[in-house]
């Protein structure tokens, strides 16, 4: 084969380019620490990197959510502890008042109870990060306050809203204690309705409910079967004369049960199993909860019961007002404060559980972040030592190539003539 100067030059340049190209890639990898700079460097790797990066972003976001939630739960715990301390203070005072020796200056005790009430209200209205701790999701105004006539304490906003945050791709964690859960009166519906009843069958149930001043009313409920697994629920609240507190009857609600399990599927088209009832003119506020209500072929009847007569605010106000009028607290009132104290303790325990759960999840997500970062490193990381050795090797090749070229390329017969 004839070998011409151009052939040698072309071949030399081609090899030189090849070596320099490899060196440029290695240099870039060492400087950036990344193997993949563009999709064509590794199409599969790019796809994996995009997914890993997305997962990293989401996991970081879950961790941020948990950080914020833990901070919110810390504030909630502190608030609950304060409320519980005040409940204990009130209980102490109520116990003191059982001793006739302490019944001389009832106003002093009324002042103490008023102070506790004020503190509990302050805490109930406290905020963290722009959110009312016990205000549900309605932040329009302070959730708890005196009525316009100053005679009772009202729930000014809807305090039943739940705040839930995503803590993993599949978990939505409720992080707040709603005002309804902590302070509200909850009327629970339990028992079962007749699954086999013919349409038009009506089941009635009733229980006592109380206004802010402790006056008794009757909650009358009615379930009319309208279709398979479907009942129309109506209710009314009547005073001691049998008159309704509503000027217009409340709208009926459709309750649908699951045919197989017998559990509630929806109340009035939503998955929420609670209904807030409010008769402001009568100072009546409570929540009906249908969680425990079922449909069964062997119905056990309906039981309707309330967790308390009145909320802690109006209870304490009632006690204080009575004391100023020379009336001692009743044992039922003391029992109600004790029940509230137990409820706060139980809520604290629940908050503690959620906090522990989130802390565990936080550790798990931190580990997941490390694993994802490791995966990212495996896909895109550069073995720097290997890259440096490869670069050195290519540099030797380049120097050798240049040396040879400088010796051979300029030489021809002409140099010897």
């Amino acid at each position, binding site marked *: *084969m*004839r*070998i*011409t*100067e*151009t*052939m040698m030059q*072309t*071949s030399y340049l*081609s090899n030189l380019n090849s070596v320099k190209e490899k060196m440029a890639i290695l240099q870039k990898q060492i400087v950036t620490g990344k193997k*993949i700079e*563009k*999709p*064509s*460097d*590794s*199409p*599969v790797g*790019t*796809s994996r*990197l*995009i*997914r890993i*990066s*997305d997962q990293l*972003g*989401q996991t*970081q*976001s*879950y961790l*941020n*959510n948990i950080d*914020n*939630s833990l901070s919110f739960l810390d504030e909630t715990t502190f608030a609950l502890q304060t409320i519980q301390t005040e409940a204990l203070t009130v209980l102490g005072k109520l116990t003191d008042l059982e001793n006739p020796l302490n019944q001389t200056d009832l106003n002093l005790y009324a002042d103490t109870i008023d102070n506790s009430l004020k503190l509990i209200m302050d805490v109930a209205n406290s905020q963290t*990060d*722009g*959110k*009312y701790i016990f*205000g*549900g*999701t*309605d*932040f*329009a105004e302070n959730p708890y306050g005196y009525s316009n006539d100053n005679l009772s304490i009202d729930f000014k*906003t*809807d305090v039943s*809203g739940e*705040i*839930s*945050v*995503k803590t993993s*791709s599949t978990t*939505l964690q409720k992080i707040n204690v709603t005002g309804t859960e902590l302070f509200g009166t909850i009327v629970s519906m339990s028992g079962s309705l007749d699954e086999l009843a013919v349409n038009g069958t009506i089941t009635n149930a009733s229980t006592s409910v109380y206004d802010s001043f402790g006056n008794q009313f009757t909650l009358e409920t009615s379930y009319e079967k309208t279709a398979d697994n479907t009942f129309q629920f109506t209710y009314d609240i009547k005073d001691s004369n049998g008159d309704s507190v509503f000027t217009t009857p409340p709208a009926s609600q459709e309750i649908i049960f699951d045919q197989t399990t017998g559990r509630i599927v929806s109340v009035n088209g939503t998955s929420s199993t609670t209904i807030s009832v409010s008769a402001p003119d009568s100072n009546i506020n409570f929540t009906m909860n249908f969680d425990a209500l079922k449909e069964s072929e062997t119905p056990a009847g309906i039981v309707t019961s309330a967790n308390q007569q009145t909320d802690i605010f109006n209870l304490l106000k009632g006690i204080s007002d009575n004391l100023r009028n020379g009336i001692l607290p009743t044992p039922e009132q003391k029992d109600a404060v004790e029940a509230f104290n137990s409820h706060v303790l139980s809520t604290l325990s629940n908050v503690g559980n959620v906090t522990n759960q989130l802390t565990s999840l936080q550790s798990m997500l931190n580990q997941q972040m490390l694993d994802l970062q490791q995966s990212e490193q495996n896909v*895109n990381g550069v073995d720097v030592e290997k890259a440096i050795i490869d670069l050195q090797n290519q540099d030797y090749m380049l120097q050798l190539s240049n040396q040879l070229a400088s010796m051979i390329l300029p030489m*021809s*017969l*002409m140099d010897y*003539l």
Partner: protein
Amino acid sequence: MALTKIFDISNRTLTAYRRALEVTSHNIANAANPYYSRQRVIFESDISDLNRGFVWGNGVKIRDVQRVRDFLIDMQIRAANPKLYDSSKQSTLIGQVETIFSEPSDLGLSNLISQFFTSFQELSVTPNSSALRTSVVNAATNLSAKVNSINSSLATTKTDIRNEFKSDVDQINSILQELQTVNAQQFDFNYKGAPINDLLDKRDALIEELSSLVNVTVTIDSNNNAVVSIGGAFAVDRLYAAKFEMVETNGKLSMQLEGSNAPIVLSGGELNALSDVYSNKIPEYQQKLDEIINQLVNSVNEIHSTGFTLTNPQQTGINFFEAYSNGSLTINPDIVRDPNNIAVSSDGTEGNGDLANSIAELNNAELLNGSTLIDSYSSLMSNIGNEKSLADNFSEANQLVIDQLQTQKLSVSGVSVDEEMTNVLKFQRTYEAAAKLITVADELLQTLINMV
């Protein structure tokens, strides 16, 4: 034989070898010219005389100056060239497209989509936080800016490709015109007995250049004319050079004979790469991107429009994105002006962020043919990367073929300075010997004259 014949033979020898040295110097002068084919002097002995029963030699003459060329290699190069330039151009163009997406990096669309959904997820924790609402608007603005930038860059790339295609078609017309001129010139020179080797080199260089632009079929006729057709359409011969024009039909870029209505079939060369990337690849990428963004916009709007704003009076039925059309993603200007218009409350209360959660969950929802938006996008990126990688591999393989063929061509047609210098020495010595012969003949003649 007359004594003077020595003068004649020597004189012819001097002429022949001076001419040979000229050819050698021409070769050396073109040693670095990649399109030059070395030329070789073919010597032959002059026809001998028969006189008085003796054969008297007449010395040497130049029969021909040949252009050393292997036509089989030329054909192979013409066949391989369109493949090389097609794949290398595809690699360059897809490389430009992949850089537009800035993947994989923090500035890539995938990261911005993730950040967009993450901002909603963080908003769900404190939905009344103006800082988090602003963060959602910022994330959406970044997303929209990137989407718009990608689409506008793709559009610019297409415009550049279109301009380059047109410029290449003009270049093809110019080459065809030049080829026709060279065909005619070489035919004329050949007819007049003038040397045509350099014209043939020019012709072959033009054909090689043409084959880098488009797939060509070349026939060399008995008169050394190159008859070329492009994609089945006649392009040039000695008498006529066709003119082509760029044509775009239904978004497909092609080339056709001026005045005809039949686009030619492109199958190689830079033009094919330009046409393929312009007509098929970029529209395919754009369509997939549009599917992803449209799905994102529709899904987010569907949820967002059911939510309540934080404004006074409270509003519902508001879309988060105003529109995604003509490659432009616009956020509802009311939301940009006042982030309180972000509607993530499902029940109208300030602290309800249910819908922010629902929007954030879209990131993991299988919205596009059983895939999440990020999965679909990563698949698009993988597809672009694969096509670029494939084009790189083809280009590398074709480059190897061309390198081999060019090496073979250089081996046959390239100038070897050593070889030429050897020839210089050989021709110079022969020239010197012939000159010496004249001196000898002169002395012989002088001796003869002195005898008289």
